[in-house]
């Protein structure tokens, strides 16, 4: 009997648990040169706001040991341009489409959600966790009351299932997760980047134009895994786990910790074909361990 890799995120069936992380994959066009996008469970598009955002001054990228800092600041052309220029490309493929929503105020978030009224997408991912925008962004994702409020505000204006993306820059991740659940979230994704910094000692200046930025990559994987594990035990929502996943073994760890799907971020930069290698590695692991359904191993860690 064929193995089952299908997973269910808030009623949306993904062909497999492999998702791309927002902001690392654009809308898939560039990576379609190297992989078959039909073999992805879902593509999370770059963050999109109601109006275009300019982003932060360069340098925006700094490599760290086993990780990378970024301070891009969610530069994007706005929802209208995304819907016209990117979405038709994404819709050519069987991968589900997750739209990552950005804003600075609750009104911003509601406005960008409404930009998708009547537009054919599968899931929203609410970005209340980006550390690189001054207002909104992470400020909402680190205050349980605000997180609940913005989640509810969007649920009130859309029927598209809503995943809330959590910031790790909090004392108690479970508290925020429960707040999103109370606000009506249909799923959670975690983690976003951890606040970090790097200094050029010769120039005596921070490397990033924004001084501080968000750390991602293998360096943060243990933190991400711990948070997914804690949240999965505490809430009754499907989770897209992410944070430094760069191999099949990493992905399986997140699933065993309780994630329904896994998102691959900057590992795409290190290896443009990594998503396919992770998928093949999961299948090989299932064969070797006689696992018929990927959902069998979800949350097996007590």
């Amino acid at each position: 009997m064929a193995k089952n890799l299908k997973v269910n995120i808030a009623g949306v069936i993904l062909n497999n648990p492999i998702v791309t992380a927002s902001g690392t994959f654009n809308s898939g066009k560039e990576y379609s040169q190297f992989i078959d996008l039909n073999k992805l469970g879902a593509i999370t598009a770059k963050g999109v706001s109601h109006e275009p955002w300019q982003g932060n001054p360069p340098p925006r990228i700094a490599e760290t040991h086993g990780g990378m800092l970024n301070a891009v600041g969610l530069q994007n052309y706005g929802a209208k341009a995304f819907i016209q220029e990117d979405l038709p490309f994404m819709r050519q493929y069987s991968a589900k489409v997750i739209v990552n929503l950005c804003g600075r105020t609750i009104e911003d978030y509601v406005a960008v959600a409404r930009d998708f009224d009547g537009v054919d997408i599968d899931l929203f991912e609410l970005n209340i966790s980006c550390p690189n925008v001054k207002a909104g962004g992470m400020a909402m994702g680190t205050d349980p009351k605000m997180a609940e409020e913005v989640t509810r505000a969007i649920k009130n204006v859309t029927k598209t299932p809503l995943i809330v993306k959590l910031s790790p820059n909090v004392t108690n991740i479970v508290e925020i997760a429960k707040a999103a659940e109370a606000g009506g979230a249909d799923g959670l994704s975690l983690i976003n980047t951890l606040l970090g910094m790097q200094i050029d000692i010769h120039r005596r200046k921070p490397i990033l134009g924004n001084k501080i930025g968000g750390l991602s990559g293998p360096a943060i994987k243990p933190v991400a895994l711990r948070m997914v594990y804690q949240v999965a035990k505490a809430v009754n929502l499907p989770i897209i786990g992410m944070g430094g996943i760069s191999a099949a073994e990493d992905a399986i760890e997140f699933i065993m910790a309780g994630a329904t799907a896994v998102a691959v971020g900057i590992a795409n930069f290190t290896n443009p074909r990594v998503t396919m290698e992770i998928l093949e590695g999961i299948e090989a692991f299932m064969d070797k361990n006689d696992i018929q359904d990927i959902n069998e191993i979800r949350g097996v860690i007590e």
Partner: protein
Amino acid sequence: MSTDVTQKFFAAKILSNSEVASDIFSMTLHAPEIAGDVKPGQFAMVYLGRGEMLLPRPISFCDANPAEGTVNLVYQVVGKGTKAMAEMPAGENVKILAPIGNGFFLDRITATPAIVGGGIGTPPLLLAAKALAAKGIKPDVFLGFRSNSILVKEFETVARNVYIATEDGSHGHKGYVTELLKNGNNYQEIISCGPAALLQALKTYAASINIPCQVSLEERMGCGVGTCVGCVVKMYGTFVRICAHGPVFDANEVDLNG
């Protein structure tokens, strides 16, 4: 955002990788997949294969030989990543993604241009000089270095004249390369690559004598293919991606001061 992208990600055999001047290395790769497609000014992302250094390094093509299926990268060791590149032995494979970027605007060149390079900005200009010479337009080449010069002989085979400046006076004029570039009105355009201060000086000079100036920019890059929006320059007030829209720009269209 182009749909006609033909970038390839593959393992290339390192034919040679050796130091040609202090901290400057030349790596030749067997890469028939792309050798015939590389345009002057384009670059490759070079994957280090090291767990602690995740990001590939953007390195410009210095040469490409379609007949032999080889490409050449000349790079400077400036940090841990390029040091790791310098340690890659001949005979092994290195993964690259290429070709990337738009390259120099050579189609519009119909009369002698001034090619101006500074330091490690010099290598990509060799391929440009070769392409121009091949269409019968030998450029005048101005190269500036801190101390050791590189690629001078190679430029001499394809240039009308080669002028050298070094800051320490060890080769050619003692001082900056911009001091050699006089009578700019004799040139149709300036084609340049080098440190930001040089490009800014050339932009100002070209504007003062009313000739076009094309500049090839570098920036810290994440993905190299346009997805991460990490490498940007301000163009007419908005940030554009250097890897996807550049690395070559008309100098008057971009803000070189960040």
